[in-house]
């Protein structure tokens, strides 16, 4: 490879006019030499779209910050700690809503995580190959059902069942606990928890299955060779996969926190803090879905956008944490 520019450079080191023309020559060469122009444009073009994705996420945060400016200025951090949500008097405190979001998601995970781990164990450790494919297909089919169809099913099938069978049963046998008191209304925290548990199941179980499968086969063989039973070898595999499963759980949490339609349709939509699972509640996503088109005043709209901002930040933190866990798991297995 010959480099003509360098030669020119050496010949006229001090001439300013010349160095400018050299710059032009270099640029010209970069743009038009042999087949560089197409590459140049192509790379910049794809870069442009990548930058677009980058800007989009920033823009989302910025738009919501600007949109909620009035509410942020008025309420500040008390938005998160005040427990009165009263659009009529223009007082917006999101505490009961945040409470509803966290409790519903957490309880959904309490139901969903053990089941998901069970499914993951069955699919990766127990089931024969011919059974594994159709079963994982069925479980993943759950993820493909639109949220609003879950909600529809919730209203007409799940809620009546909860009202007529589950809640009377629970209040009769466990009524001494504060969690199972009150009128069996059907719509409420319990319905939301059950429907969320079903909805996050496919996410947690399919990621956990992939993670269990990524644990090297030699781990199982070593355990089995030492005389361990299937369950004992599975326990060793689970120990290896711990952080990955935690990551899958966090991804499920992120989904549960942001789940909108199904929850809005069954949770009862009332911003109250009640220990009873029978009582209606509210989540951040369902408040926005339910009240956004009804928001008549600027302050009301601003408060709802602020709620969206809180939800945005919360899901980013949860997902980043989840990604970190899954990454650390992959790295751990990769270096072995």
């Amino acid at each position, binding site marked *: 490879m010959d480099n003509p520019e360098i030669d020119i450079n050496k010949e006229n080191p001090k001439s300013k006019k010349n160095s400018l023309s050299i710059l032009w020559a270099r640029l010209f060469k970069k743009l038009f030499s042999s087949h560089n122009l197409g590459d140049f444009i192509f790379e910049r073009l794809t870069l442009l779209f990548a930058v677009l994705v980058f800007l989009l996420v920033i823009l989302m945060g910025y738009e919501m910050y600007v949109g909620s400016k009035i509410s942020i200025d008025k309420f500040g951090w008390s938005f998160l700690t005040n427990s009165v949500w009263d659009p009529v008097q223009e007082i917006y405190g999101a505490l009961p809503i945040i409470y509803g979001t966290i409790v519903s998601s957490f309880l959904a995970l309490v139901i969903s995580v053990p089941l*998901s781990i069970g499914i993951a164990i069955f699919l990766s450790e127990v089931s024969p190959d011919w059974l594994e494919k159709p079963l994982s297909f069925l479980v993943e089919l759950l993820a493909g059902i*639109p949220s609003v169809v879950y909600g*529809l*099913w919730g209203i007409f099938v799940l809620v009546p069942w909860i009202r007529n069978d589950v809640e009377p049963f629970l209040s009769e046998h466990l009524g001494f606990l504060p969690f199972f008191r009150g009128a069996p209304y059907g719509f409420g925290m319990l319905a939301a928890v059950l429907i969320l548990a079903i909805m996050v199941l496919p996410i947690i179980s399919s990621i956990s299955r992939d993670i269990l499968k990524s644990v090297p086969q030699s781990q199982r063989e070593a355990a089995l060779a030492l005389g361990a039973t299937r369950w004992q070898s599975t326990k060793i595999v689970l120990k290896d996969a711990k952080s990955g499963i935690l990551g899958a759980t966090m991804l499920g949490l992120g989904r549960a926190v942001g789940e909108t339609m199904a929850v809005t349709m069954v949770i009862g939509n009332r911003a109250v803090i009640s220990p009873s699972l029978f009582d209606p509640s509210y989540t951040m996503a369902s408040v926005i879905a339910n009240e956004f088109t009804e928001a008549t005043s600027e302050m009301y709209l601003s408060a709802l956008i602020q709620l969206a901002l809180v939800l945005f930040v919360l899901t980013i933190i949860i997902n980043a944490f989840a990604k970190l866990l899954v990454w650390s798991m992959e790295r751990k297995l990769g270096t072995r």
Partner: protein
Amino acid sequence: MTSSKFFHIKRKITSAVMMSLSLVATLIAVIPLILIFYYTISKGITYLNIDFFVAMPKPVGEAGGGMANAIVGTLMLIGIGGAIGIPVGVMSGTYLSEFGNNKFGATVRFLTDVLSGVPSIVVGVVAYTLVVVPMKHFSAFAGGIALGILMIPTITRTTEEMIKLVPHSLREAGLALGIPKWKTTILIVLKTAWKGIATGILLGLSRAAGETAPLLFTALGNRFWSTNVMQPMASLTVYIYDYAKSPFEDWNNQAWTAALVLIIMISMLSLLFRIITRSKFKTK
């Protein structure tokens, strides 16, 4: 001797119990799936007739009618979403796989993951502040933008993964023949990976077809026939939501039918997805 035998039996029993519990967990997960499909099909079939596809919704309180406008609306909304999401997704995915081995690439990769975790309702709020507020009215365009944003992470990541699967030797062969890199990427790499990319696109589209939350205050809904993208537009999902909440039994039943039609539409997309992936593995 006997005690060791006892422990041997005990741990065997424990193992058998735990392993069967894992089977029970799998069966429990399948129950809601069966229930949801059973109700959607059995309740949805009552209104599944030609009218549903060609007639317009009847005024409040009148029985019958169809959702022709919502079916067209859903297709148009995912069309607008695709027109935004597909180019951005495919191009940024190409960038990530071909030029993205640097800090900026890692950042974009992280941000697409972040974007895929953002709740769809939040995207709806952003589309509202970005499009609806400046335009001063609800529009299908705003809804399409929200759906497009929701498609981007799926398409970007699938494109990247699929392009990475293309063997390096193919690229090198192209470059060795003196073909410029951009031509190699488009004519050889993207052409080899297009089936995989198409599955990603279909996945993104079918997810967008089932979205409701981002449409509630962007495309809003419309009881009349409208194909104007600058006006509110009906969609199946928003109809399901409205009709499910309504006190009219007739509307409730139509919600089930709409759910059935929606699921059929989505499964047709996934069927296409499966056919494409299958033929991909056959040729390999």
